[in-house]
């Protein structure tokens, strides 16, 4: 599209950071760290990252819904200080008003524009036609399926004719087939060239979705959210999910996304602090063993994208499980392929009791938090210890929420391994009874 105006970005994000204070400890927690990004007319930019990468926060900063702690967002050259009139947003959970009809929900977008009634009617009909909802004007959102509800969400954004359309994981609350269908229609609309917005910013954790739709994929890292880099998607539209080019690009991005966290620590390092803070990926032991069994069943190395597809789970949910398997020395990931180690294979084949023992040995070797908790309990000579003791330690390194998650993951692993018990009424950790 508009190649002449290429130099003038629609959105310019300059040095944006978002920091949340933590009242108890007096410290702070960084969600976004020094983000610089421009969005030009005629392109779709995907922000791809795992949960905790701040991609939704970034989207909200652009839309003027959340004020950056540092830096500025420029929209069409003007600094954004309040709700940004140049953008319209499509929400993950649809955000429809249940007491308004489809038509009234769509017209909400025009409320602030004070257009004549006739124009309002015409525009909302056009938007509804565009998303294939003709004949549903008088229906209430409750009567519609999830996919249709999100179509209303799109129509409401289209009716504004925004410069930039903001999509906040718009397909992730839908079932697989519906999501695929709607995604395809949006791609078609874009390719036909009469899309009601000049550019699109898409937030997603789904790699294939990003490749399917975007011209540029901006990859973000987690805790704190930073831009790691971007990949240009030059595949011809309409894009074929099963083409070799598509597949190899997906593999490539999978590899990039798995890499920074696949730190394999064969020997436990010396540590001067009470707590080694290598973060644990949030995966349940059951999920880890399930994944390993699946890979073992298929025999040789397995493609991450294929696993994700076969299990019908999003990369965002699969990656922590994979990370955990790698951390515990059960699996290796290379070039987007998963291989089981010797231990991993034994673990996958073992019956419950043996599997538990293997898991315990590996957790003690590679999951420092589990080891610490176990050692503290041993040293307290059988006295139970309150969870706050560990949470306080973790709080020095993580946000409150993440500290809680880290603790619960360690707790899950330790309980599964039979290393300790937990009394959830009194919030006490204790050694299991012999």
């Amino acid at each position: 599209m508009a190649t002449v105006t290429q130099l003038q970005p629609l959105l310019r994000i300059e040095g944006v950071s978002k920091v949340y204070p933590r009242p108890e400890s007096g410290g702070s927690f960084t969600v976004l760290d020094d983000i610089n990004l421009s969005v030009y007319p005629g392109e779709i930019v995907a922000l791809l990252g795992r949960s905790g990468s701040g991609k939704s926060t970034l989207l909200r900063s652009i839309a003027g819904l959340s004020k950056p702690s540092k830096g500025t967002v420029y929209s069409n050259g003007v600094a954004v200080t309040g709700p940004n009139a140049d953008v319209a947003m499509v929400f993950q959970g649809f955000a429809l008003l249940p007491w308004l009809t489809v038509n009234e929900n769509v017209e909400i977008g025009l409320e602030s524009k004070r257009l004549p009634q006739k124009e309002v009617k015409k525009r909302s009909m056009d938007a509804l036609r565009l998303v294939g909802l003709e004949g549903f004007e008088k229906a209430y959102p409750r009567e519609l399926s999830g996919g249709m509800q999100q179509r209303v969400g799109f129509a409401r954004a289209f009716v504004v004719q925004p410069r930039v359309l903001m999509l906040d994981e718009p397909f992730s609350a839908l079932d697989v087939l519906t999501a695929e269908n709607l995604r395809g229609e949006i791609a078609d609309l874009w390719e036909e060239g009469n899309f009601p917005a000049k550019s699109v910013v898409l937030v997603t954790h789904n790699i294939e979705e990003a490749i399917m739709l975007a011209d540029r994929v901006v990859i973000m890292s987690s805790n704190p959210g930073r831009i790691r880099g971007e990949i240009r998607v030059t595949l011809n539209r309409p894009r074929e999910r099963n083409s070799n080019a598509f597949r190899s690009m997906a593999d490539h991005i999978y590899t990039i996304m798995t890499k920074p966290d696949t730190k394999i620590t064969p020997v436990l390092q010396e540590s001067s602090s009470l707590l080694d803070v290598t973060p644990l990926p949030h995966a349940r032991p059951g999920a880890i063993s399930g994944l390993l069994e699946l890979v073992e069943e298929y025999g040789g190395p397995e493609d991450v994208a294929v696993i994700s597809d076969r299990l019908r789970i999003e990369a965002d949910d699969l990656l922590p499980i994979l990370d955990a398997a790698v951390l515990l020395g059960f699996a290796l990931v290379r070039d987007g392929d998963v291989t089981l180690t010797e231990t991993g294979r034994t673990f996958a084949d073992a019956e419950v009791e043996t599997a538990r023992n293997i898991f315990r040995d590996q957790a003690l070797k590679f999951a420092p938090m589990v080891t610490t908790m176990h050692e503290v309990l041993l040293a307290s000579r059988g006295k139970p210890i309150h969870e706050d003791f560990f949470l306080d330690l973790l709080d020095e390194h993580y946000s409150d929420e993440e500290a809680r998650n880290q603790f619960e993951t360690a707790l899950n692993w330790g309980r599964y391994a039979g290393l300790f018990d937990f009394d959830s009424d009194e919030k006490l950790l204790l050694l299991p009874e012999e």
Partner: protein
Amino acid sequence: MIRRAFPSKYALPRSPIGPADTAILLGLFLLFYTIARVGSGFFVAFKPPSLSPKVYLDPVNLPYYAARSTLRMFIALGGSVLFTLAYGYIAAKSQRAEKVMIPLLDILQSVPVLGFLSVTVTFFISMFPGSILGLGMASLFAIFTGQVWNMTFSFYHSLITLPKELDEAATVFQFSKWRRFVSVEIPAAMIGLVWNGMMSFGGGWFFVAVTEAITVNNNSYTLPGIGSYVAKAILEKNLKALGYAILTMVVLIIAIDQLFWRPIVAWAEKFRMDKSTAATHASSWVLDLLRSSKLPRIFSQEWRKVRRRLPEISFKRFRRPTIKLTWKRKKSRINEDLVFGIIIGTIVVGAITVGIHIITSEVPAREIFSVIGLGFLTFLRVVCLLLFASAVWTPIGVAIGFNPKLSRIAQPIVLILASFPANFLFPAATIIFIRLGLGLNFGSIILMILGAQWYVLFNSIAGAMAVPNDLREMAANMRLSGIPLWRKLILPAIFPAWVTGAITASGGAWNASIVSEVVTWGKSTLTADGVGAYIAKATTTGDAPRIVLGVSLMCVFVVLSNRLFWRKLYALAETRYRLG
């Protein structure tokens, strides 16, 4: 591996009695001492009416009076819990009983409790002749009827909406009825029960204040307590004593909130079934203290030991697994239902006939019509109250609810304000009315507002807090503001909460009309035209036909406005304006 030594408090073997235990022991000791000391006053002999116990305005006596009123509140609460469990259980389990019990509950809930004081007081005094116990029972009964219906409804509702899977699990594992009740039904109902109990308990103070000093059938009765202290202060125009009483009441409400309700609410959190709403993390320092103490654990261990030795108590009917019951009793159903219906119908028709007979034998028809007019006047007051409370408190409530930091601070304060018995403030308002020369016809609206407005505020806050964040973001993104924002998003979103608040407020206001349409300060009395004042006057003179007329008219007004107005709004709130 080099690691820091562990903090000594974790390594040291704990002594069996720690500071937490000491604090709890001390607290328990104090509690028992107070109950023993105060409880003995319940059986003092008196000869009505001349020798009823005196109340002294010296503030030294206030703690004792406060303790007596508090004890009464807790006894009534205990009674309410027992009644709730029994009534709710039977209504939920027996289809036939349900048909009578639930409409009855609905009516009882609408009946102005204070209208029946003359009947209950006379009845209880004749039950316990020569003892103050009868008066105490009458007061207890009034408090009880003021709080119990809500709790019963909540429990019944929890029982019939028990999650299906829990119900099926209990059946599959052949739980006895007792086991099902204790480990499935009560836990599932716990949160609703606790919150309703807390709100109703707060409302109970109002009745304490009214029933401790009353004039019925031309006899004045006094029951030592904080309410009669206020009554005496009003009689003697003692503003200072009034101030002390208000202060005591505030301290009392906060103390009970901190020592009793907060811990229970925080504890009940563990019965929450939907994980999503657990974001409102309730915490209580008392509960933390109890949990860090060893005493409860030692106690429960010992109790388990004792219980193991006890023979299993078996209730034969109660222990039978529940499955069998559902199959029998289908056949002679129609006949039984018919007989049952005839009996109930006869009772209802009989009661109405007797009521009409009592009224028409003494009250001329013209007066009956004028009382209907008085009912309308009171009705108008209730409407004014609702309009005012909604116009003022809804915007403030929304502003608070949209600000998480503010609402965390404001919500407990509003709860305390709602618990504060408004009739403690009536004297001060009365003085102002007298000074300004403002008649009670308008003044009583203000008195009603004093008590009932908090329910609107409290529910507006709760409603605003429950508005999903993405809807608010959507509205900001679509740049809605001002009137369109309120019309499209805020008002519909808080509508269900507003209905709940308004129903509670109007129910409270009808009840309050009986005490707010006639107020006194020393020897001067202000009276408003209204059915509340009519009932109050009839109660004082013991005019039974007029009491029956006034109360039944008020019931008709309440029930009609419930059926014709509130129920429709409620249905609308449940269907169209339900979020999520």
